[in-house]
Structures are given as structure tokens and as C-alpha cells.
């Protein structure tokens, strides 16, 4: 199972699950990164972190270690 942080820039994936039970995971879910949603990695900051994502019609930025919690379906 791949994680969101492994997706290359420009590719789109479908969220399989968000792991973790803390505030960060809840926040990811509340911002729309729920199972089944399509998410595209639009780009990264100059140093490779954080990631810029597009989902549900808007742009979201999250750090790589946060993206690691999001599993992407094949």
C-alpha cells in the first residue's frame, strides 16, 4: 500500500485510509482527505517539503510526515 508522500508530482491517487488517532489525523479527515476521495500532488516547496495537494476543488498543503499517514489505493 503506497502512502501519499510517495506519489510523484503531477499524479493523482485515491485515498484508501488515514491512519492515526490524534489531532493531526482528525484534521486531515476534516479537511476532506477521506477514504475514496481523489487527491493530486500538485507540487512541493523548493526544499521538497511540504507538499501541495489538490482535492475536492481546493489546494491543501501538508508536511511529508503528515502525508505518510494517508494510504493510497492502487
Amino acid at each position, binding site marked *: 500500500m503506497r502512502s501519499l508522500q510517495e506519489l510523484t508530482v503531477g499524479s493523482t491517487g485515491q485515498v484508501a485510509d488515514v491512519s492515526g488517532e490524534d489531532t493531526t489525523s482528525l484534521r486531515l479527515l476534516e479537511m476532506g482527505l477521506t477514504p475514496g476521495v481523489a487527491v493530486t500532488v500538485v507540487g512541493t516547496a523548493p526544499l521538497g517539503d511540504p507538499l501541495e495537494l489538490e482535492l475536492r476543488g481546493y489546494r491543501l*498543503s501538508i508536511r511529508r510526515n503528515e502525508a505518510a499517514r494517508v494510504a493510497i489505493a492502487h
Partner: protein
Amino acid sequence: MSSVAASDTSAGSAASSSGHLSVALLGNPNTGKSTLFSALAGIPTRIGNYPGVTVEEKIGRFTHRGQGIELIDLPGTYSLVAKSPDEQVVVDVLQGKMKGITRPDCVVVVADATNLPRNLYLVSQALAVGLPVVVALTLGDVADSKGIAVDHAALSQELGCPVINVVAPRRLGIGRLADMLVEASDWQPPTPPMRLTSCLAAADPARPAAAAEAIARYAWIDEVVNRVVTRQTDHRRSTSDRIDSLLTHRLWGTLVFVTTMLAIFSSIFWLAAPLMDLISAGVDALASGADALMAEGTLKSLVVDGVIAGVGGVVVFLPQIAILFLFVAILEGCGYLSRTAFLMDRLLVGVGLSGKSFIPLLSSFACAIPGIMAARTIENRRDRLLTILVAPLMSCSARLPVYLLLCGAFVPNIAVGVSWLRLPAVVLAAMYAIGVVVAAVVAFVLSRTVFRGPPQPFVMELPGWRWPQPAVVLERVREAAVSFLKNAGTLIMAVSIVVWALGTYPKPTLPADVPADAAVLEGEALRQSFLGRAGRLIEPVVKPLGWDWRLGCAAVASFPAREVVLGTLGVIYNLGDVDPGEEEGASLLIRQLRAATWDGTDRKVFTLPVALSIMVFFALCAQCASTLVVIGKETGSWVWPVVTFSYMTGLAWLGAFLTYQAGTALGW
């Protein structure tokens, strides 16, 4: 949330008993909520912090069809599940649990039409709060340009509450919204839509409740959005889209970023300068006027040397604050502020901070006060506090005269490597670098020790480009300016008076054989005052730094405001009131300093290591009462100014000590 609705009976009666209607304005950040607030209520009547927390409270009043309405602009939030102080405040106000605020009579939820799915998350929670709800659908014009169409009538049906299209900058829909509010006391709170209730009931019991609920809400949102939103697949790229592409481009985006930051930085230095000179001239005029009009004596000295000098010295920073907040408000309004945090995050995380600290720290190079105030944009409490604690280490513009004088007078003008690179310039750059490096180390250490904690989510929306609203931008500048001036008029005035007293009393007694010229008199007055005595007292402490008691005295005198040190040195060396800014004054001071010897010896005080140790001390020391006062205000506690003062003074002493000892040992 439903249990609160059942127990609350005051929603309807509150309006009629107090005469005015209380409306809460709720919504995600970046939805045009501030513009809507402005369009409805104009300038806020109450700005401050909610009791006990450093979350901004903003309340406005207006009248519509004879009905008085109080509008509470709640902090922007993505969810009513409280995970931060901001969210907790929103929940408390909506449940009527916030001290000093009665429970609102109804709620206006602002939803961004370009971004409806995520906005509906908060709307779905608001529908269960137990208060009448109106949804104001904003940014419809931007949605049009993106080819997004929202059927607001269908949406209203799906939600079970009124939905009004609003384009606040053009005042479209404002009247209808106000009409609806006036009639709000006649409504019942909505029943959450059946489909939402069944989605929530079907939430996965295997997951933690909050997570399962979030997923269930989005399941409902997907259904609603399918029925209500249509996207044109072949719409023409709008100007906004083109600007967006530019700003997010790997190369051009970075170029835009660097240019913007340079522009902000230089404006705070150079654009502000003529305005600051104007204010400075005004303060001087006021001082001369008072000097001429008032009778000699203690009161005049208090007014001229204490209040006018002290408060005037702080008020002169108003242009820098106004300019900085103008830029921050514009960046915020056009959606670019988040992008700067995004670009700088990786670098700042490395030292224990985060991307949002970038602009506050950058601004602190001009003056820490606006920088610390700008830290309000950091929602994360820990990051915000850390940023505020290290901001004063960014060498501010008040340190520059000290660096320039000492570099010019005591650093040999030799070339370093290439002929155009001179040692004084290198030393100057080194002083700035020292501040940054020490700040990085302090932030790093604090974030791993005292402020160690679970990682805070960075999860941050990157809003698309939109045109900043002048009304909102000017309002932000006005707020910042007023808040700063209030500080100056109260706390800083108090501090100035105390410092004046310490520098004036006890009055000097001159030995009979000393000529009574003004300069000598002033020198004696300072030496024999409490401040001067403090200088002599700490001489053993400053000796290891290579300083004599006069330097110690000047350092102590400059604790409230470092920029007075040069003038103070002039007084101590019996030059009278030397203005080191003027060509003649500076050379006179430099000559005096170069000639200064230790009491009773021929040994020069100002060697190169001494000059360097003074500069390092000034680079790292918190010699600014105004900054400390602002830190206290922004953190809501006097603990942090004390902590800042203590750690910085400690580091300053240590830095100066190491510099002097190393420099002397190396024979500089």
C-alpha cells in the same frame, strides 16, 4: 450539541429583552468573512481578546429596519470539534458559555462557493448547534470566473435552511441578508437534514467517533454537491487562474516570493524613513515648545525629558508598524500569506519553528514590535510563543546606529580577500548573522526541551488568488496602529517616567572647584543619579567584558531603549547632549571614545575587542521596554517578557564576554 439546544430557552427572548439581536458570523478562513462583516457592520466597535485567551474578539453593531444588531465575527475555523483555542472560543460562544457574551440569537455561516465541499463540513455542524442558521454563499463572482455554478435554491432545500448569494465587495445580497436576520427571531432552529442524520448514524463504529463522524459527513457532502454544483469543463482561464499559475510556478513563483519579501523588507526600512523623520521632527518641535513655555523645574524635566522623550521615541515607529501591517493585510487578503508559510516551512521546521514564523521574523529586522504583533497569524500556540521569544534577536534598526558608530570608529578599514570587501562591512554583516544564528539555536533548544510536545499539524489551506478588499486591509492597519498607540500612551509612558526618575534623582552636588558648564553638569547629574550609581555598582560584572563603569552605566541606561546609548555616552563623557546622527557630533563622540582611558591610568578603554564585545552585547540584549511590553500584551502574561529579558541578557553577557576574551587573547 443537540443537548445544548434542548436545554436552551433563551434564543428567542434574548432579542426582545435586550432590544438588540445578536448574530454570530461563522465560517472557514479565507471565505470573505471579514469583507462581509465590513459590509454589514462597518468598523468594529469592540476589539480585544476573549477573556483568558489570546484569541481575537471582534464585534460590530449596526441597525437595519430599526432593529439594532450586534455582529460577532468569530475566528475562522474549519470545524466545531475543538482542537485549538480558536475553535474552543467558537464553540463556547455558540453554546453561550463565553463570559461577557450572551448566546447569539442566530448564526450566519459563510460558505465559499468556489470551495463548497469543504465549506459544507462546517455548515453541517452548524445545523446541529440549535440556533437559527442562514448560509451566506460568498465569492460567487470568483466561482463564475472558474466556471463553477452553485444552485443556491437546491442547496437551501438540501440543507433545510435559507441560502443567500452574497457578493460583499459589491454589496449584492447584503440587504437581503440583513432582512433575513431581522426576521431571525421568528424562526426555529433548523432540523438537521434527514440524509445527514442517516449518514451519521451509519458511521463506522470500528473507528474513533470523531474520525468516523468526519467520514460520514463527507459522505453526505458528496451527495449534496453532486446535486447542487455544476462545473463547466471548458471554461476560459480567468485572470485569477493565470495569477495562480504564476504564483505556484516553480521558478516564477519563487522569483515573485523573493521580490515580494525584498520589497516588504526595504519598505519597512526606507519607505518608513521619511515618515519617521517627520514624526521625529514633530516630537522635537513639541519638546522645544514645552521647553520654551514651561517654567524651569521638575515638572518641565518630567514632561520634556521623561514623557516626550520616552513616548516620542516609541511613537516614531508608527510608520514601520503601519507599513508592515499594510503588507501583511494585503498578502492575507489576496491569499498569498499562506503561500509564504508554505515556501519557508521546511527551513524553519529545521530550527523548531514553522513556515508561519517567517514574516514575523523578517519584519523584526526592522523593528521587533510589528514583528511580534504579526505573530498573531500563527494559530499554533507553541509556534507563536517561540516566534515571539526569538523575534527580538533579529537585529532591529535601532541597533544599526550603534553598529555603524563602533564599526566606523574602531574596526580597521582593511580589505578582506578582495579589495572592495572591507572589514567594517564584514563585521556589520556578522552582527546581523549572530542574531539569526543565536535565534535558530535558542528556538531549536527550546523546542526540544521546555516547549517539547506532540507535533502540531501543519495542515494548511492554500487559498487561490483573489483581489484584496481595501476596506478590510485598511481596517487591519487601523487596528494595529490604534493598538500600538494605546500601548505607547499607557504602559510605555509609565516606563519612561520611571526611567526618567531613576536618571534624575538624586540631584547632583558639584564640588566647588568644578566649572559649572552645562555639559559637565549633565555628566555629573547622570553619574550621581540612581542610574549612574547602578553603573558603578555593576562595574565588577562588566569588567570581564572589558568595559569600565561608564560603559556599564550607558548599558544600564539603554535597557529601556537601546537607541539612547550613543546619546548617553555623549553625556557621560561630558559632551552635553550630543546628537550622534549629526556629522560633527559623531566625530566628537568618536574622538572622546578613542581618547577614553581607564580611571587613573593611561590604558585605553576602547580597543577592538571591547568595541566588538559592545556590539555583540547589543546584538543579543533585550534593551527595549516597548518590545517587552508588547510581548506581555501579545502573550497575555508578564512571565514571557521576564523570560525574554532574562535569557537575552544572559546570552548577551556571555557573548560579550567570549568576544572580549577571545579577541584579547588573539591580540586583535
